[in-house]
């Protein structure tokens, strides 16, 4: 009852906010949260698109993407904790080990 394009617009706004957060913040944790925001926007597009064709398959794919996101968050936060042990900081701009 709502045009699919409306969902795309909302998802675009969420994705852009996530991108802005990822590009402008220094705190690794907030940057990571922004990534989650973008993942959610992508999932929203996936479900909105599949709602006119095959919502079942769209949901199944979205479910796999949720599993991937969970695994990614677990490992990602573990890496942030390991980094924090080395540096006592979560400032992305201090993580310059690989600058050579």
């Amino acid at each position: 009852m709502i045009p699919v394009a409306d969902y795309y617009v909302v998802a675009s706004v969420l994705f852009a906010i996530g991108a802005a957060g990822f590009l402008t913040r220094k705190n690794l944790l907030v940057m990571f949260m922004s990534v989650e925001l973008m993942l959610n926007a992508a999932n929203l597009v996936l479900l909105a698109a599949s709602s006119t064709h095959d919502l079942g398959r769209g949901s199944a794919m979205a479910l796999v993407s949720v599993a991937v996101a969970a695994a990614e968050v677990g490992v990602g936060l573990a890496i942030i904790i390991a980094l924090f042990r080395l540096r006592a900081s979560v400032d992305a701009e201090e993580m310059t080990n690989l600058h050579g």
Partner: protein
Amino acid sequence: MSPTLAVQTSPFVDYVGIAPYLLLVVGMIVVLMVLPLLLAKTTRHRVKDEAYECGLPPQGTAKQRFSVHFYMVAVLFILFDIEAVFLFPWATSVQELGPIGFSGAVVFVAVLGLGLAYAWRKRVLDWN
């Protein structure tokens, strides 16, 4: 119907009743939280503002760091939560899926069981 219409039958109508209910609950919480501000008097004192530690002067800061153990338990929780989420669709249709669906689920549970066994061996589930 115009061709841009997305959802034909939204189940959304089933969930409308939650709105008036939520209004009632939130209203009650707000009233309960605001009334003491109007009814009771407030005094401040340096010692009263301190954190309560059995009546003794507080020692050190509360902003300290905690064991990473809590984190590992939370990660295990998420991964097993996903397992449950994947098994819900299987459980609702296990009668139709029959033996094939069952063997699929067994493989799924067995793989994650390996993970539980690994965490068990590495003593993540022990607290000391």
